[in-house]
């Protein structure tokens, strides 16, 4: 999702691109990754410092000065991702359950909705939400304002919903059919079986892919900069402009954002892997 930065041609953006391919959080990431990110960051600030001319501040000084603002932006990214995850999960769980319904049309409709949002580019869904939803509603005489960031949350929540739906469907179907048979034999109806027998066995299976999705959505929240939400990358662009758009600051400032995201997402990835291993061992 860091492709937009790679397109800007900045070295840090390119590094971000390398680190965020599909499913980057799975195999083969170890301490070397931490060192690599640290090196990219140090090298970019060093280049910035070396090319600094008289009367201008060094890259580190610039980052230090602006770090409260930039970190505030980063917190906003985390808020957007958490809110999107919350809404997307709340909608995705029932959708996933409906995908296993024994009523054909219900199952088919849930499948269609899931596939539609799962196979749409996240950025396009974001554009649609931000540009199609009006910025204010009038309901019963009350006017509700919808700021861009709230629409962006919805834009991120849609793919989360679709992916959670698939995670839930997969987990439900991975529970052995014997569980359904024995529940039915004991007189459980479908709803009781799902709520008390099947879903409780799904949580463990769902947690690792759900956390993986959370990491991905967190990293993709920088896409909100494209629609002008004041998150970290938007603020980084503004800081760059305020500092006179010096090319020497490009790499250190984007590098700073990269490090922030990395330090947040990498532990989650490791934790996810640990959980996967633990659940696999226990079955």
């Amino acid at each position, binding site marked *: 999702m860091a492709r937009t930065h790679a397109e800007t041609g900045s070295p840090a953006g390119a590094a971000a691109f390398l680190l965020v391919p599909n499913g980057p959080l799975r195999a083969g990431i170890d301490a070397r990754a931490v060192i690599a990110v640290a090196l990219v960051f140090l090298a970019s600030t060093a280049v910035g410092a070396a090319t600094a001319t008289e009367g201008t501040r060094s890259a580190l000084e610039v980052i230090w000065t602006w770090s409260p603002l930039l970190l505030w932006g980063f917190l906003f990214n985390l808020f957007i991702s958490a809110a999107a995850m919350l809404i997307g999960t709340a909608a995705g769980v029932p959708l996933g359950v409906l995908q296993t319904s024994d009523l054909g049309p219900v199952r088919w409709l849930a499948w269609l909705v899931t596939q539609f949002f799962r196979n749409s580019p996240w950025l396009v869904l974001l554009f649609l939400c931000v540009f199609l939803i009006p910025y204010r509603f009038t309901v019963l005489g009350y006017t509700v304002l919808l700021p861009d960031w709230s629409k962006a949350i919805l834009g991120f929540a849609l793919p989360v919903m679709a992916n959670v739906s698939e995670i839930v469907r997969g987990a439900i179907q991975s529970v052995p059919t014997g569980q359904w048979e024995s529940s039915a*034999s004991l007189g459980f109806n479908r709803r009781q079986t799902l709520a008390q027998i099947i879903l409780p*066995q799904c949580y463990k299976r769902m947690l690792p892919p759900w956390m993986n999705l959370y990491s991905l959505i967190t990293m993709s929240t920088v896409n909100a900069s494209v629609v002008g939400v004041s998150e970290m990358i938007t603020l980084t662009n503004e800081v760059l402009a305020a500092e006179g758009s010096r090319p020497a600051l490009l790499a250190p400032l984007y590098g700073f954002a990269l490090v922030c995201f990395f330090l947040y997402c990498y532990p989650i990835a490791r934790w996810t892997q640990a959980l996967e291993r633990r659940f696999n061992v226990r079955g």
Partner: protein
Amino acid sequence: MRSVTHALGAPIVLLKHVCKRFGDVEVLKDISLEVAKGETICIIGPSGSGKSTILRCINGLVPVTSGSIKVDGVEVNDPKLDTLALRRKVGIVFQQYNLFPHKTALQNVMMAPVTVLKQDKAEVEARALKLLDKVRLAGKESSYPGELSGGQQQRVAIARSLAMNPLLMLFDEVTAALDPETKKEVLVTIRELAAEGMTCILVTHEMSFAREVADHVYFTDAGVIVEHGAPDEILQHPKEPRTRAFLEQVL
């Protein structure tokens, strides 16, 4: 001999001309059998002969294609069937135990009466503890299925079915996945149940056990009942060549 009641007592299970097909495959062809109250019958036969399907039809897990199944006078092959009422009367134990892995042994036994029958929790717990004691699992109440041996899990499964106070118990090759030692624990439990007067239908490959506990033995092959009769008749002096060939293979 209890087989006398076979002719006299009102049947608790009555199958008449039951047919079942899965797509083009005819699994059951014109199956008729009856089980009297308190009777134990064993269904034997080669794999794929439709034995397990018969059990699944009796408790309505698998709908039949044609024919009639009556359990305690109620027609199972009826779209308006009260499934819950049927499932309360018929307990089933499976080859793969199918315990709920996220619940303890005690919770496994308590769940259906509490959730489905909405019975009082304290009452159900007292009954569940007694049942676990009956299947010789006192002390294992708080163990999870993953912590129990196959034989122990199977006995929890039996207790779980008994907690619904069924009229009739179905056993679907319940010892097939067990090693000889744990097999014995389970067979002892079933023997006690049968001796107490529980009506039991067993699908089994344990010929010596069938001979010991059964009042009546049915031999099925390729979806039909080839012959049936008293255990000694069928297992010692089979008339049909197919039965003879099968018994020669397994004994």
